[in-house]
């Protein structure tokens, strides 16, 4: 056996576990779920899968890249509203005007609605518009080395600003009520159970594709660089890389995933409104990621789906209890279990063997010692050696 082929077999073995989980997930989503679940539950699961897709992106940006993005709702909303505008226009017919505009507005279509009559422009817009916004913002923020808490707060302010902007536009984008009442999805009648099933399959497939993309990213040199930037940004800079570029790529990918998730959310749930995109839903995206294990491959999506499931189950019977529970989850998981449930010992060993390459796993969880120094010029500053001393 030559050295190359030995290396190859080793690689295959290491990836075997991940592949197994992947195939199991695919079987569960595409074969088991549609046969076991009722149409109503399946549609619910479709919604949770949308959250799972957002979570995959957050896992990439936050878990691996260390960027705590509190504004994913913005990208979710951009994708969602683009899709919703297209569905509204398609429902209104060739030269028609969406119903709510006749109610509240002038009854004329604003010029920026026109491009979304075309399905191609819509599908491109769902991916490209969130990506471009993320690129612009990321370039502005990361190049100026704004990071850590500053970045988190800015991304949160972005979510607040976006929701406020939407609420104010009653006549052009539906205001507080958002866009709803869609009848068809690219020609498929939305009230037909068969088409609802089709939407579920599309969502599940897209989640699997996103997971595959992120898996390959984690295995690549870029994936290693991203972790390096998270743990020691300055060292990466000294090695000759530009950390800003590395972070922008992850941030844009996360935004694109959120946009796609938003676009799927619209036909599955039937509404998109400022309540889906503001500060509160944006942070709510994070809890599932944290619970599942922010730096793992499957953790974020599994966590997000599990949390959404728990929310539906619990808030149906005890609405006020759910909020306490959600708050407690944030406190307990982040404070005492920062690696998420996949870092619990019982689960850790199988997951470590299954989910990731051995080399990456060791540096996988953001360890306290290796975490980037807190963004606190007032504290870290005065002596240059204080960083080493902490």
């Amino acid at each position: 056996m030559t050295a190359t082929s030995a290396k190859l077999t080793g690689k295959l073995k290491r990836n075997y576990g991940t592949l197994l989980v992947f195939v199991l997930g695919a079987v569960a989503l595409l074969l088991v779920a549609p046969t076991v679940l009722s149409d109503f539950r399946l549609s619910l699961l479709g919604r949770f899968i949308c959250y799972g897709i957002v979570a995959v992106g957050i896992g990439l940006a936050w878990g691996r890249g260390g960027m705590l993005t509190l504004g994913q709702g913005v990208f979710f909303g951009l994708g969602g509203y683009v899709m919703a505008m297209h569905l509204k226009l398609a429902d209104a017919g060739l030269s028609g005007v969406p119903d709510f505009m006749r109610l509240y507005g002038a009854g004329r279509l604003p010029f920026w609605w026109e491009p979304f009559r075309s399905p191609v422009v819509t599908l491109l817009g769902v991916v490209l518009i969130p990506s471009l916004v993320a690129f612009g913002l990321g370039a502005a923020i990361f190049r100026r080395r704004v990071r850590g808490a500053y970045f988190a707060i800015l991304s949160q302010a972005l979510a607040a600003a976006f929701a406020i902007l939407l609420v104010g536009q009653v006549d052009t984008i539906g205001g507080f009520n958002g866009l709803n009442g869609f009848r068809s999805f690219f020609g498929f009648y939305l009230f037909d159970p068969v088409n609802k099933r089709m939407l579920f399959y599309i969502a599940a497939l897209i989640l699997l594709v996103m997971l595959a993309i992120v898996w390959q990213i984690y295995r690549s040199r870029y994936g290693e660089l991203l972790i390096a930037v998270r743990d020691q940004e300055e060292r990466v800079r000294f090695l000759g890389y530009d950390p800003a570029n590395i972070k922008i790529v992850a941030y844009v990918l996360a935004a694109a995933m959120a946009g796609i998730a938003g676009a799927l959310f619209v036909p599955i749930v039937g509404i998109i409104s400022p309540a889906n995109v503001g500060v509160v839903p944006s942070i709510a995206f994070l809890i599932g990621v944290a619970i599942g294990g922010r730096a793992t491959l499957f953790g974020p999506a599994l966590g997000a789906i599990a949390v959404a499931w728990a929310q539906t189950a619990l808030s149906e019977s005890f609405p006020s209890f759910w909020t306490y529970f959600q708050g407690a989850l944030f406190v307990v998981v982040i404070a005492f279990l920062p690696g998420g449930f996949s870092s619990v010992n019982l689960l850790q060993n199988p997951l470590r063997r299954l989910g990731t390459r051995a080399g990456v796993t060791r540096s996988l969880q953001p360890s306290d010692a290796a975490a980037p120094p807190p963004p606190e010029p007032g504290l870290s500053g005065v002596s240059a050696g204080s960083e080493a001393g902490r």
Partner: protein
Amino acid sequence: MQALFSQLVAGLSLGSVLLLAALGLALTFGQMGVINMAHGEFMMAGAYTAFIIQRGIADAGTSLLLAIPLGFLVGGVMGLILEATLIRRMYHRPLDTLLVTWGVSLILQQAARDIFGAPNVDVRAPGWLSGSIDIGFTQVPAARLFILALAVAAVLGLSLLLKTTPLGRRIRGVVQNRDLAETVGISTRSTDRLTFFIGSGLAGIAGVALTLLGSTGPTLGTSYIVDAFLVVVAGGIGQIKGAVIAAFGLGLLQATFEYSTTANIAKVMVFVVVVVFLQIRPQGIFSIRTRSLA
């Protein structure tokens, strides 16, 4: 001229509210590096404190004057509990603090909803604050002037505390160099605790002040927390004067934009201005010059 002047007044009034909300954050986030998302809920607690006191004491003036120190105490004690139980463990993980305190804020909001009910409650303003005062060019609601005075008093009190008292000296010492402060015998633990107590107490005062402007509900804090953090980020951390300038600057900007557009668009424009401003000065208006890379 008159339009300009009334905008100036509106901006200063908005700025003073922002300042009261952000002053405690300037201490806990700016000085200690703790991102406390429950700060808004401490404001809410202050507001509900004013509400409870008024149920006991019918006279609006007395109850307001009593609510200010008690609101400080309530906010401060809540902060103290939060620091002692959770934040203490997480000083080396500032981003995770954000999420943990968000969880705390969810719990506190729901608790307020269960205790006081979801509908908003109202606190009556005392008679001497309900009218308007004519200041030549324009009429100013007395309550807004009172809040401006309260904000100025809070800033003065806080800077006096930091500049002149032994406690202030300890706080500044710990902020500037934790290890060195510890070496000379300062108890950094108790200093952290006290700093957090004062910062959270200021949130309580802000909450009491907000009852003069509108009704109090469980989501009172949520509506101010993002703006308050934006003020601290724009002002630059580590110094109180940054927060003061940023608060009034953002307040004036908001008022100016509101004059030509709507309140919603104005908020979005203020956000854009802050992002552009951080392009020019990534560390805010004032930053302590350091040799560190961060």
